[in-house]
């Protein structure tokens, strides 16, 4: 079984390590509650 989460465009900045592994077709073993990413809103507010 599988769970897929779809976030709206530009809503989340997914953690770099997860993107980097996926970019080379490598699945990352994770557990419930581990960090997935940060709201882009938060990042934009911090930048301001």
């Amino acid at each position, binding site marked *: *079984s*599988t*769970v*897929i*989460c*779809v*976030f*709206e*465009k530009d*809503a*989340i900045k*997914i*953690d770099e*390590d*997860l*993107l980097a*592994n*996926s*970019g*080379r*077709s*490598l*699945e*990352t*073993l*994770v*557990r*419930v*509650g*581990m*960090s*997935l*990413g*940060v*709201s882009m*809103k*938060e990042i934009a507010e911090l930048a301001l």
Partner: protein
Amino acid sequence: MGNESSKDSSSSDSSTNEKPSRLSRFKQKLHFRRPRNNGSTSLSHQKLFTADDFAGIALLTLIGAEMKFEDKWLACVSLGEQTFRTEKSDNTDKPIWNSEKKLLLEKKGPHVARISVFETNRVLKNNLIGYCEIDLLEFLTRDSDSDFEVFDLFNPSSPDIVVGNISLSCSVEDPIETEKNFARRILSIVDYDEDGKLSFLEFSDLISAFGNQVAVNKKEELFKTADVNGDGLVSMDELAALLALQQEKEPLMNCCPVCGEVLEVADKLNTMIHLTLCFDEGTGNQVMTGGFLTDKQASYGWMFKLSEWGHFSSYDVGLNSGSSASHILVFDRRTKRLVEELIDGKIVLSMRAIYQSKVGLGLLDIGTKELLKSISEKQGKKMNSVESSKDIPKFIEFFKDQINLAEVKYPLEHFKTFNDFFIRELKLGARPIASLENDEVAVCAADSRLMAFKSAEDSLRVWIKGRKFSIQGLLGKEIVSDAFVDGSLVIFRLAPQDYHRFHFPVSGIIERIVDIPGCLYTVNPIAVNSKYCNVFTENKRVVSIISTKHFGKVAFIAIGATMVGSITFLKKEGDFVKKGDEFGYFSFGG
């Protein structure tokens, strides 16, 4: 973490007085290194390691072990994406290896080494008997006067059972010593008469070996610069001094004389790391064999190696296709190591036959879809029967190093059916939630193998090969939103041994829950990677929309699969949910 069971009792008090502790030695080395590297502006654009991240080159030595029975033993060390193995010991219960390996330590990189000890088997796969995990940075900073320490080895199926112990040492090489050793080894390459010094001819060959095409007169000039005492020969110390001096001004080393790799000329730190590790191969003590990705791979018996030989070069990270699709490598985020998941050969063959060929998919079209559903429904009934509880111990044994019973909420007697165990709950706190009070941080929704993509386009390029896949197809006809179409995609794939409850990745309100009927294809990467199969858009699934303050709307799609096709929810539309809360579970059924 492996528990340190004892320390070197033989270390005398006198050594404490004469020799600084491991902690102070490590601190001294870091202190020594800091000003040297921070001052160099050339290090500010490192593509590999920065001076801030570089913690040192650790020399790890696996000395020996004490096991509970006699066998021929081998040990593996895994750190990050590298694994090294020792030679096989004699037939004994006290194997001695004295095998060493230099490992690059980064402060933010992998630093938990897993040591695995295998009993060897002449024909088949070697058996993992014990393991321990050691945080090398912590080991090096621990205040101890002993040169080696002894660690308990744990049973992989019951980590509370000690099956032996292993003694090892680990130290960070003094940078001065590293440079000296480095110069000594470089010198030995061209020291044809083995007098420990270089004549002009030998020196000239060395410069060429570095890939440096300087003119003869320039070589003469360099030789004179190096030959400080003017005896017409360059000693080891003189060469070391020249390399250090020259590397700052006009680097001599353009390529590695061992492997031929082109070196970044302005990158002294990485040059030193590369050359030190490269020179280490085949020298020193009995050096461990490298080039493996996981400890399982390093431990295979010769029979397995033979069968794999045909496509050995294709052994790489991620999913292998075709004949090599018998193992999947995944990256364990917690330990920062690659781990190998073996898929049963028969399953691989059947999955390849069905999902990676037009003929197989043709079969699915003429009734196999109904068959998969029927099998799953029957399996659900079976797994809900009281008799199925007898399968629980076999299941635990099969996945012995992957199910941690210590974190399961109830004892085994509590589970009256196999499905009860399959949807087991965990103890409170077994899964800490990252930034619990901060809803701007999303968290992982399941214990799983995760793939994440910034856009659906990225996922199609790298992972999902089904020709009909689209975000809209995944969400179904009832949920239409342009914002999702170009959105980010995170896939959590659960394996049979995993904790099968899924949780909320974000906080918000459940706006909708929509059932989409469909097939029960497997969600194994073999099917996901097949261009003929569209598991995510054709399988039975439930789409939930969570409305959040910080992420807008988030679509949460729970997808059923062959055998495990039953999806149960513990929340309903309109509920306010907190990230990390339980949302539902998958179980056996149709």
